[in-house]
């Protein structure tokens, strides 16, 4: 089936070339990073994780969100999702590949990455994260590819694939839970030390993932002959609305616990995140955008008249994506380090090379999604 990705329209060619260029630029700066060290980024002794690990965290959510299609379709026999479930699985595959890339480029000594397997450490949450992520990648490649291939041949999918699909449902929950545990189990970081970290991760993932999927469906409808169908998209948009509501609720719950108890170790991080501390308010400015866009997206999504109009739906999904990207792809990781254990407020500003590398990995992911979706559309519209 891979050959179907090789030929396409002129627009497809330009798009692929553009993504390849961005990936190439990212690779160039990664080469520089290998030479200079991670000091090329904005990370410091105080803020020792930055954009890379934040993107990883955000993207695990995308991978997990495929379950929002798989579960209704395979467990509840919701037929309308039959057309797009494979899109969700391919989104998951691309997202996990991006995750793994982000973690790898964040290593100080990537040449020693094999030590993770040579000296496995079951007490480390990272050990379990590697297991669940690689398992999830495998599951989605196998199920997505097998189902699509059966469709191409015009036969029902083989029976052995069903149990794997069922396993993928709790497995999807596990990848985001284990990723949340990376943060939630650390004794000295009050901002992350919260039992609702994993539920928060899942809620925001189930909003941002389907929101992006809706955007992809709308793009496919516009530029290809594939139409996901009104009902599938409207159901997805309701999933986004509910998940976004839960996500906003969880953030408010965190704010209540911190600010009503008024324990400094808990309030200081949230104060920094939303209002800034001692004049350091770069993240706070971003978070204001995040809060406003979340509320705006939610209002647009709960009004049926707005939600059913495609341009407004696209806007609402774009706002959801932006809001949750700021919250998780920027605020969540960095704020855990500010103030530091020694009460220092050290700003973190990603550098140019760091942003170029991150954009390069996003472009690589989009390229994978483009290729997968191209094959998918070709199979769907030609058979």
């Amino acid at each position, binding site marked *: 089936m891979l050959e179907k990705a090789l030929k396409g329209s002129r627009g497809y060619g330009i798009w692929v070339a553009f993504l390849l260029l961005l990936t190439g630029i990212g690779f160039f700066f990664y080469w520089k990073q290998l030479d200079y060290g991670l000091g090329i980024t904005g990370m410091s002794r105080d803020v020792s994780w930055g954009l890379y690990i934040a993107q990883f965290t955000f993207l695990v959510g995308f991978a997990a969100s495929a379950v929002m299609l798989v579960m209704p379709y395979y467990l509840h026999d919701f037929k309308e999702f039959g057309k797009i479930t494979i899109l969700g699985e391919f989104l998951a595959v691309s997202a996990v590949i991006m995750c793994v890339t982000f973690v790898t480029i964040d290593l100080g000594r990537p040449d020693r990455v094999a030590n993770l397997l040579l000296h496995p450490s079951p007490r480390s*949450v990272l050990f379990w994260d590697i297991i669940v992520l690689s398992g999830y990648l495998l599951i989605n490649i196998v199920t997505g590819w097998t189902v699509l291939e059966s469709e191409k041949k015009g036969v029902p999918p083989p029976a052995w694939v069903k149990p794997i699909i069922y396993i993928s449902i709790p497995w999807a929950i596990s990848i985001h839970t284990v990723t949340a545990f990376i943060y939630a189990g650390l004794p000295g970081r009050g901002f992350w030390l919260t039992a609702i970290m994993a539920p928060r991760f899942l809620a925001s993932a189930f909003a941002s993932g389907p929101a992006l999927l809706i955007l992809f469906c709308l793009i496919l409808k516009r530029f290809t002959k594939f139409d996901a169908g009104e009902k599938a998209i409207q159901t997805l948009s309701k999933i986004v609305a509910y998940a976004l509501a839960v996500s906003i609720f969880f953030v408010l719950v965190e704010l209540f616990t911190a600010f009503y108890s008024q324990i400094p170790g808990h309030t200081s991080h949230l104060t920094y995140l939303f209002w800034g501390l001692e004049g350091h308010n770069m993240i706070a400015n971003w978070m204001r955008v995040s809060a406003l866009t979340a509320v705006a997206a939610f209002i647009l999504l709960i009004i049926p008249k707005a939600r059913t109009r495609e341009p407004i739906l696209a806007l609402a999904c774009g706002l959801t994506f932006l809001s949750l990207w700021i919250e998780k792809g920027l605020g969540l990781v960095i704020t855990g380090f500010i103030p530091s254990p020694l009460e220092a407020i050290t700003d973190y500003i990603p550098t140019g090379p760091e942003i170029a590398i991150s954009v390069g990995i996003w472009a690589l992911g989009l390229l994978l999604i483009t290729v997968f979706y191209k094959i998918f559309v070709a199979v769907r519209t030609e058979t």
Partner: protein
Amino acid sequence: MAPTRREFLKIAGVSAAGLVLPPLASVFAGAQAGMPAAGGVAPTGSDPRSALTAKRWGMVIDTRKCRSGCTDCIDACHIAHNVPNFGNPKDEIRWIGTEKMAHVFPAETHPRIPESIKSLPIPVFCNHCENPPCVRVCPTQATFQRADGIVMMDYHRCIGCRFCMAACPYGSRSMNFRDPRPFIPKIDPAFPTRTKGVVEKCNFCEERLAQGILPACVIACSEKALSFGDLEDPGSDVRRVLDGKFSLRRRQELGTGPQIYYIL
């Protein structure tokens, strides 16, 4: 002569560690089965004539003796361990630093504490925790705890993921964000330099203990503010100091069990 003997001690210690490695770890460790892993023994046991040994090493810092502006302990440590000086806080690597009381003991500081105590420069180290979160989170066992309590780093195994830096509630760890070697004022060949991309921290001078010498910071302090010894031995220096004074440990409530005690 000295380096040769040191090398011998290292090899002897490493071989001793290999004998008692947990079976599971040695299966996976494969070719590197000789490397010390979690639960390994102290290499200090290899030469009973001169090595200093303990059941649990610990330190007491009498901050009342610290002079404002004094950096003797820091300088001695950083010279002995080839710690680079980048001259900027972003890339900074430090094994010992000094901080104000409000930053070291935020929960114990209150407005009525006299200025003379509040303005004390308090030295901060790796706490060599009894229950170290950094060891728990390390995905390669590059950081590990010896039987005598010293929390150590294997610079050859560290992959630079910095999970330990996020896990440490004391800010005791530093990352080599750049190649440190050009920034080491004077390289001491007796101690290994590190490469870019690995994490490092205070090692309680295990390399000196193995030769029967007290940690560099303890010796460098002309005011004798630092005491070092076996916390399990009632006759040790540290126990004598602790028995006579009220002492504090940093962020006691976290359950990490720091082995550095402060008298303010």
